[in-house]
């Protein structure tokens, strides 16, 4: 039995080495996507183009504007002379928000400083709410401290809660993105490569010959899967190395725990690819089915949006995706130095997924031949 698995393994490696496109993709997909997303994806919005309607037009308003720009959150790119004009610009999309400083701003500032009961806000932001990230950033400016702008010593008021940030104190998105990308890239390549590899065999008629030889479906699958396990581990190494070198993403946990988690996920993804290969009749169909799995893996797994923020039914779906469990494990290991043991629920689930997937694929595969 081992000899036959080995024969398929060697054959698959040789075919892979002749297929330059696929071979190149194994290395280029993680490299390009890591560079692209590592630099591009940023969840804290900066330099938002905003407009200004300044009815006060005094030194105080200029000081406030200067202080706001100094935060790098907003850039005042346009000046308007009426609220209507500003609203039009919002609709056109040339600015994402507009700050209106009323003519009676000096009085309002005095009221506010005196902590008078009927003190009012000193200005108003009009925000294009279609982008929630930008809205959130502008909302963050609601309690912008005024003291500095008045040349007074900053007298901080004790906040209600103190916040201490563990694991990612600088709040860099890339620290969260790189381990997540591991899951996405593995999902894509592992599922696609295996499903396509088997469907190709059927498409080219190789299967017709193979079923008359003594090779068993299980041996054939195992032999076809193993090369891609190696491929997956290579990709993991590339992503983590580049993440460390280029984006300074730390790997806090042990490498053994990390590769353990990656292996579990690779196996789960490969069996998913096998199941797809028993459904798809052509390589194109295999590709479409892969995308069908890939999109929820990107959007629901916690890669893009926090798992906790999703409604319950979406969470159930997410639980079914191997990527969700891997996302939790890999972020735990890479960022929080979690032991594989403390993530055993996710690890067990991936194992179970692999087992069930193998059985389903074997049964369906045999039926297809029979």
């Amino acid at each position, binding site marked *: 039995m081992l*000899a*036959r698995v*080995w*024969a398929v393994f*060697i*054959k698959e490696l*040789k*075919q892979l080495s*002749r*297929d330059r496109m696929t071979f190149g993709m194994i290395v280029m997909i993680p490299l390009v996507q890591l560079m692209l997303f590592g630099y591009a994806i940023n969840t804290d919005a900066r330099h938002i183009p905003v407009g200004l309607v300044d009815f006060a037009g005094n030194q105080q308003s200029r000081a406030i504007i200067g202080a706001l720009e100094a935060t790098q959150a907003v850039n005042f790119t346009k000046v308007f002379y009426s609220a209507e004009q500003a609203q039009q610009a919002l609709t056109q999309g040339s600015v994402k928000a507009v700050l209106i400083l009323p003519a009676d701003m000096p009085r309002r500032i005095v009221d506010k400083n005196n902590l008078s009961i009927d003190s009012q806000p000193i200005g108003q932001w009009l925000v294009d709410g279609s982008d929630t990230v930008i809205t959130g950033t502008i909302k963050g400016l609601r309690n912008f401290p005024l003291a500095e702008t008045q040349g007074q010593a900053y007298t901080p008021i004790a906040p209600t809660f103190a916040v201490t940030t563990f694991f990612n104190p600088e709040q860099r998105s890339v620290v969260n993105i790189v381990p997540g990308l591991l899951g996405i890239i593995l999902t894509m390549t592992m599922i696609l490569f295996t499903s396509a590899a088997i469907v190709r065999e059927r498409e*080219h*008629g*190789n*299967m*017709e*010959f*193979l079923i*008359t*030889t*003594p*090779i*068993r479906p299980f041996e054939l699958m195992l032999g076809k899967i193993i090369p891609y396990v190696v491929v997956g581990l290579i990709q993991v190494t590339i992503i983590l190395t580049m993440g460390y070198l280029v984006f300074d993403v730390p790997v806090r946990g042990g490498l053994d725990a990390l590769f353990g988690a990656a292996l579990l996920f690779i196996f789960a993804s490969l069996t998913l690819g096998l199941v797809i290969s028993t459904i798809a009749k052509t390589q194109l169909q295999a590709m479409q089915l892969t995308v069908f799995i890939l999109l929820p893996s990107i959007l629901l797994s916690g890669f893009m949006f926090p798992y906790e923020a999703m409604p319950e039914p979406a969470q159930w779906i997410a639980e079914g995706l191997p990527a969700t469990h891997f996302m939790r494990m890999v972020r735990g290991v890479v960022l929080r130095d979690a032991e594989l043991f403390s993530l055993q629920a996710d690890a067990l689930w991936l194992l179970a997924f692999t087992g069930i997937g193998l059985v389903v694929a074997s049964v369906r595969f045999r039926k297809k031949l029979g």
Partner: protein
Amino acid sequence: MCGQPLKGHEEDLKQRLGYMTQKFSLYENLTVRENLNFVASIYGLRRGAAKARIGELLHLYGLQGREKQLAGSMSGGQKQRLALACATLHQPELLFLDEPTSAVDPENRREFWERLFDLCDQGTTILVSTHYMDEAERCHQLAILENGIKRADGTPQQLMQDMPANVLEISGTELRQLKQNLIAQTEVVSAAQVGNRLRVLVSKQIPQPEQLIAKWLTNQSVEVVRPSLEDVFVACTGGRHVG
């Protein structure tokens, strides 16, 4: 099959069977030797034995010097020889060939059949499926199948003798019109034009087929000819054919 019940012995039997598919089903992006090596390890040949056997097959099927060529870049005849080499690598007792020479020229086909008769001589039973009657004629035994039901079997000579119709050949002009008239007769099993002759199969229940035909003839001549396997095939399958 091969003296064993099929059920429960599928895997053992596969060791004793060979199968060559109609379409080339080996790996086009592997070389000739890699393909042979792969098949050898699938059948569990030991390294030394595999090497000797592969050398033997390369020689037998004229593939020496092409060991490092990719299978996909070979000609139809070469691919077919490689496929036969792979199908017979483990020296099967029973060899199935599915329309083996559908994609090769006549010369390669003759060569191929030479190899098949060599295998026969060594004691291999070969089962060929084909829809080429000239190819069927080379076989020792024939069975004509229609929708999975056996319509006739025997040696080619036997089949031609026992066929349920007489064959008449009419030569002359205005054959299209004549054909239309003839196929309207229930006794006429089939009528097919071959060049400037019309080949008519008349049921053997009619003792004097020429007489039946004669009344339709205008200026054509008719003669009774030796049946071909195609006639046998047409007479045995699907009732009336008017190709």
